[in-house]
């Protein structure tokens, strides 16, 4: 038995132990968070769980929902494995949870969408809502849309739309090179970028468009950098993340490639940590719903970020986990009950004051509509990124905001609603 299996077992045992504790009384509304809490990507899952627990503490400190009920966030470890996600879903059903949160990995999200759809059809009166905080596959709010699924993050197409909007504002961008990972996500990024570039930034010439074998299989990016250099591209548009992003950036900086990187995930804390000093040299942009150096953040959010930083020693990176919990609380209060169907109806069309302006849960496809901000990594931003108490010395500075009209895209969703 290796240590990994042992740790996974131990975590399961602890989580299982917590779940059966008497804390789960009728006075609390329990929300299950299915994320990797062990294994290779556990850091991502644990950070997300922290965000939800912190947001729930805020709701509870203000007196909870429905005049005194607390929101209780329960971590359910899927170790980033498909069969464990199913296992935890069944456990959530046994525990009688009505709300499931997940976001790390679109394959797991799809698993949950299908499970919840089947479960709700067979068990009327015991429905489950799936609140998706980060799984970005656009199809979830298009052809695969479901009444039981709500996405609180922008989907791939919306993020690409924001990037292209910002690219169109920069007249120095003339030649653009696209490099993406050859799997479902990378291909949908590529398709959205092709379509939106032609429509919104026709003056930009696409001089390269290729797919690489994903997930760290490419060790040496030098030949790709050489091709990009030879193409004369001044800008790179990429959906890469993880090792594929870090090596790409390190390769480009090491070869002195002078091009702008437009990315979705280049600014993830784990990536920025991996760039090392190259993070100060690369001209890298990310698209997010917020970053901590944006000049006009609401006072409430600034205080909240400071509290998060004080508790976890991490920079508050994404706002969507906060607004997910606060909107859920508001919807429960508005519905006057914690039953999922009335709460789902209350969530439809609900607005919330987000960091860049109002965000709204679109009723037709359950896709949150939001402004997005494109920002550049720099060592001159006033407030550097901290992670686990460590100062990275770099942070993001706003280039421009893509308003809701820029990121809002039509949907093909034909939603079936319960009677």
């Amino acid at each position, binding site marked *: 038995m*290796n*240590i*990994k299996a042992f*740790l996974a077992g131990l975590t399961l045992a602890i989580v299982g132990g917590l779940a059966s504790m008497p804390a789960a009384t009728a006075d609390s509304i329990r929300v299950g968070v299915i994320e990797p809490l062990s294994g*290779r*990507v*556990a*850091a991502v899952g644990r950070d997300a769980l922290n965000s939800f627990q912190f947001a729930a503490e805020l709701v509870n400190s203000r007196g909870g929902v429905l005049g005194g009920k607390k929101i209780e966030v329960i971590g359910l470890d899927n170790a980033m494995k498909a069969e464990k996600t199913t296992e935890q879903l069944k456990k959530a059903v046994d525990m009688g949870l009505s709300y499931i949160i997940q976001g790390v990995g679109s394959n797991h999200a799809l698993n949950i969408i299908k499970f919840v759809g089947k479960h709700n059809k067979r068990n009327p009166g015991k429905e489950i809502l799936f609140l998706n905080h980060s799984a970005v596959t656009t199809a979830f709010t298009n052809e695969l849309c479901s009444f039981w699924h709500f996405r609180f993050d922008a989907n791939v197409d919306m993020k690409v739309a924001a990037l292209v909007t910002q690219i169109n504002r920069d007249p120095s961008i003339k030649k653009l090179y696209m490099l993406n990972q*050859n799997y479902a996500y990378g291909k949908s990024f590529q398709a959205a970028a092709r379509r939106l570039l032609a429509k919104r930034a026709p003056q930009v010439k696409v001089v390269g468009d*290729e*797919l*690489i*074998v994903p*997930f*760290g*299989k*490419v*060790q*040496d990016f*030098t*030949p*790709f*950098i*050489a*091709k990009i*250099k*030879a193409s004369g591209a001044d800008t790179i548009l990429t959906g890469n993340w993880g*090792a594929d992003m*870090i*090596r790409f950036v*390190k390769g480009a900086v*090491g*070869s*002195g*490639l002078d091009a702008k990187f437009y990315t979705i995930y280049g600014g993830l*804390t*784990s*990536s920025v*940590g*991996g*760039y*090392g*000093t*190259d*993070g100060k040299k690369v001209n890298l942009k990310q698209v997010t719903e917020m970053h901590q150096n944006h000049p006009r953040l609401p006072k409430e959010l600034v205080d909240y970020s400071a509290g998060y930083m004080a508790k976890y020693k991490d920079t508050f990176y994404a706002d969507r986990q906060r607004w997910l919990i606060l909107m859920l609380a508001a919807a429960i209060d508005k519905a006057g009950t914690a039953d999922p169907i009335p709460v789902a109806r209350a969530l439809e069309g609900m607005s919330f004051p987000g960091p860049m302006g109002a965000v709204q849960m679109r009723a037709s496809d359950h896709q949150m509509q939001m402004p997005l901000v494109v920002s550049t990594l720099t060592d001159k931003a006033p407030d550097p990124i901290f*992670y*686990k108490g460590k100062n*990275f010395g770099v942070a993001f500075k706003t280039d421009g905001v893509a308003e809701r009209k820029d990121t809002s895209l039509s949907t093909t969703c034909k939603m079936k609603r319960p009677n």
Partner: protein
Amino acid sequence: MEVLVFSIFNGLLYGMLLFMLASGLTLIFSLMGVLNFAHASFFMLGAYFAYQISGFIGFWPGLVFAPLIVGVIGAAVERYGLRPVHKFGHVAELLFTFGLAFVIEEVVQMIWGKVPVPYDIPETMNVAAFTWRGLDYSAYRLFMLGASVAIFLALFVFIAKTRTGLIIQAALTHPNIVSSLGHDVGKIFMWTFGFGCALAGVAGVIGGNVLGTEPSMAITLGPIVFVVIVIGGLGSLWGALIAALFIGIMDNLSISYDLSLYPVLALFGVEREVEGIMQDLVNLTTAGLAPVLPYLFLVLMLILRPRGLFGTRDV
């Protein structure tokens, strides 16, 4: 023509990094007959130790001390882990090193966390030595090339020409005779394994800051190292060198020339905008395939010539 020379040069740089990694693995195999699945994990340990040491006292002391520590850990693994399972045969040894790889990964995550650490190229060497076709080649990349060539030469001389090398070679095939000549065979195996691991450690120190230092680096790099030593021939230093360079250069050529299968399919009347499974074939290019090509060669090599290019025995 210039693209060709350029790609070969880039392939040489990458190939020599692969060789540095593969050399320790093939050395351990040639001398001990042990296929060390945890080899890339020792590479990872080298990178993490170098990151830690360079944070305190700089890159150069790291280049000395990190491989030393890795070597001592390797020797201890042989003495207290591998030796007891040795009597159960090679399969037991294989399984032992396989498990060890997971243990090392988990320990690394416990100590340094699950996110990548910022292990940087030393600032003094992070300057362009020359520029070719618009790409800068840093002094550090030339240092990598020089270091790997030096390792190859030193190893070659050590094994083939020195007395110690000869004793080690003899200990593999005739341990009883070597033992009765008064040499401590157990100790020879222990230090050989440690030395092989230290070589992986050196590769980690030198390559970790270029490839990125993170807990999954061993898992992603491990398979390609095995491809190198199988294609080159298990246990052959020359084979590892040729195979590493071959893979490095092929990788660069297939990305630079980026050939597509489409012209061939077009002969059979396939349209560019075809739907379904054919669409994947039409869009298939050598650049997209580049990281998979070495594995294709591995399969072909095992079918056509199981002993590899320079190997003396079948896999």
